[in-house]
């Protein structure tokens, strides 16, 4: 198998004040070398928790991985000790966070924050690490890197800080880069710059990217494959083309419909009515059933199994059962900007 990363039936639970929140319920995913996998879903769907689980950064307590495997190059990271994980983090798998304003240590020079990983993982000397830090800053498009390497985070703008965060993440040439909403906190124009940068860097370094986002525009821009999460479950996954043009899950339809379009016939934004399920008491059927316009009795009773629509696309929905009535996806799901 050429899978760099394979997640098998991952379950994550948070034990909060008596309530047990099942944040991730039986998610299976895989990631190939050099590809970009997007995980989309609204807030609370479990996408960020999944990414934190890969990094081994789920705070315990209150969080714990109750079952499942996270195979990185064949090794199960779930059973790695903290010490072993420290050798993976930053070196093999690294992460970019949502808010660049808070992701950097305010009292440490930017250069030093980049150098830390280099000194730890590549056993570089301070001078070499500094040289490499300057190089990295140049790589992520920060002007005058030899000056800025000695500056503090607050001297950088939001977009520039995100570039620094990316430089930190890429410092040791990781095999996987997890980007958790990397552009959400940024201005639209800066967003485009950061996405361009990520695409360019991926071309140069061949790093595989797991992109966590709720923004389908970003997905269309960057990803080759997409996983759609809802209520802690992976409800549909497929290639970018499959998800955007032949989606089968009503939630994916809803997501696509709710994307604002340039040449839309109506000026109304379509929203999915309702709110995500309470994961401290997960529904026994499909989590989307209460909000699904096509819901059937069976949906509230039992979680559907995956239907394999192609080598790459699988969907968990009762509508794909032979016994279910035929349902056509709504017309509103056309891809943005057509």
């Amino acid at each position, binding site marked *: 198998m050429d899978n760099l990363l394979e997640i098998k039936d991952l379950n994550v639970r948070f034990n909060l004040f008596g309530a047990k929140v099942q944040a991730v319920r039986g998610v299976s995913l895989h990631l190939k070398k050099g590809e970009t996998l997007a995980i989309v879903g609204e807030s609370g769907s479990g996408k960020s928790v999944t990414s934190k689980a890969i990094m081994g950064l789920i705070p315990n307590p209150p969080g714990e991985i109750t079952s499942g495997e996270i195979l990185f190059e064949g090794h199960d990271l779930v059973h790695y000790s903290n010490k072993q994980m*420290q050798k993976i983090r930053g070196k093999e798998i690294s992460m970019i966070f949502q808010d660049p304003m808070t992701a950097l240590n305010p009292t440490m020079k930017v250069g030093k924050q980049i150098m830390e990983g280099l000194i730890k993982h590549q056993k570089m000397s301070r001078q070499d690490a500094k040289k490499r830090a300057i190089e990295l800053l140049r790589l992520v498009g920060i002007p005058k890197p030899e000056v800025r390497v000695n500056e503090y985070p607050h001297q950088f703008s939001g977009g520039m800080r995100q570039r620094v965060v990316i430089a930190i993440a890429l410092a040791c040439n990781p095999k996987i880069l997890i980007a958790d909403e990397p552009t959400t906190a940024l201005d639209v124009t800066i967003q485009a710059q950061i996405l361009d940068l990520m695409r360019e860097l991926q071309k140069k370094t061949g790093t595989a990217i797991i992109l966590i986002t709720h923004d389908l525009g970003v997905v269309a821009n960057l990803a080759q494959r997409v996983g759609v999460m809802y209520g802690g479950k992976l409800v549909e996954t497929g290639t970018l083309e499959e998800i955007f043009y032949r989606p089968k899950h009503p939630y994916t339809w809803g997501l696509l419909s709710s994307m604002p379009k340039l040449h839309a016939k109506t000026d109304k934004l379509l929203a999915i009515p309702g709110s995500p399920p309470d994961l401290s008491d997960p529904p026994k059927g499909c989590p989307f059933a209460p909000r699904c316009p096509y819901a059937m009795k069976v949906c509230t009773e039992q979680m559907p199994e995956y239907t394999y629509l192609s080598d790459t696309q699988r969907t968990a929905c009762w509508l794909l059962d032979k016994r279910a009535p035929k349902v056509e996806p709504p017309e509103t799901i056309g891809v943005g900007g057509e």
Partner: protein
Amino acid sequence: MVRYILKRVGYMLVTFYVVITLTFLSMKLLPGTPFKTANRLTPQQLNQLRHYYGLDQPIPVQYVHYLWNFIHGDLGGSFQYGMQPVTQFLLQRFPVSLELGVEAMIAGTILGILLGIVAGIYRARFLDWGTMTFSVIGISIPSFIFAGILQYAFAVNVQLFPVAGWSGPMSHVLPATSLAIGVLALVARFMRTEMVEVLNQDYIVTAQAKGLTTSAVVFRHAIRNALIPIITVIGPLTAAVVTGSLVVENIFAIPGIGSQFVDSIVTNDYPMIMGTTEVYAGMFIITIFIVDILYGVIDPRIRVSGGQTS
């Protein structure tokens, strides 16, 4: 930065000027003459004294005199010690108080920081709970109670340390400890809050995501950021230690300005009271000034923005 410092120096001088003016005014407002207690003086002697101190002159003139003398380090004569200069007493006794205060501050702050860090890391566990319980007790109970308990337990009951006095390191232990407990409690509590706050920050996750060891994350990233705000409590701490030292010196009969101050209150030695008050005020104002500057130097965010505005 330079302009900022100059501005702070200006503020400091103004505040201090207000203090000495206020002490002057309260001297004038005191019931009767300052020599009221010296009843045995003949009217002639009284007049001599009044003339000697310029008390027969109009108040504005006296005020100028007072300021002039103050600038020259003359704080008047002590009533209880036959008009010997107050300045001399203060100079003699101040180092003792300073020593006691500094010992208590250093011991309390260092232990407090350590306890706070530990409590912050092991939040919501027994260690945290214990530290915080101790801290509430330490903050609540006045130092004169601690002084009494320590004196009774370790000097009267079990004779480990001298009951009173200020000679040799053994005599420092009890008074410095009774002052340090409050400092320790306050610092521990503050440090814990800061640690918890900092450990919840995103940049801690960034540091972990780099693959740093837990100790590197705590020491390099968390503690440094948590330590910076500690500087802000130095001001209130100084005030607390000064207040505490008044009573602790008295209880342990330590020859510092604190016990002197209490003596002069009992004997209505006004010049001594005023002089000591001015020393305390001066110390407090200088501490606040140093804290302000220090904060600017240590926190890069303030350091640079201060530089840009000047």
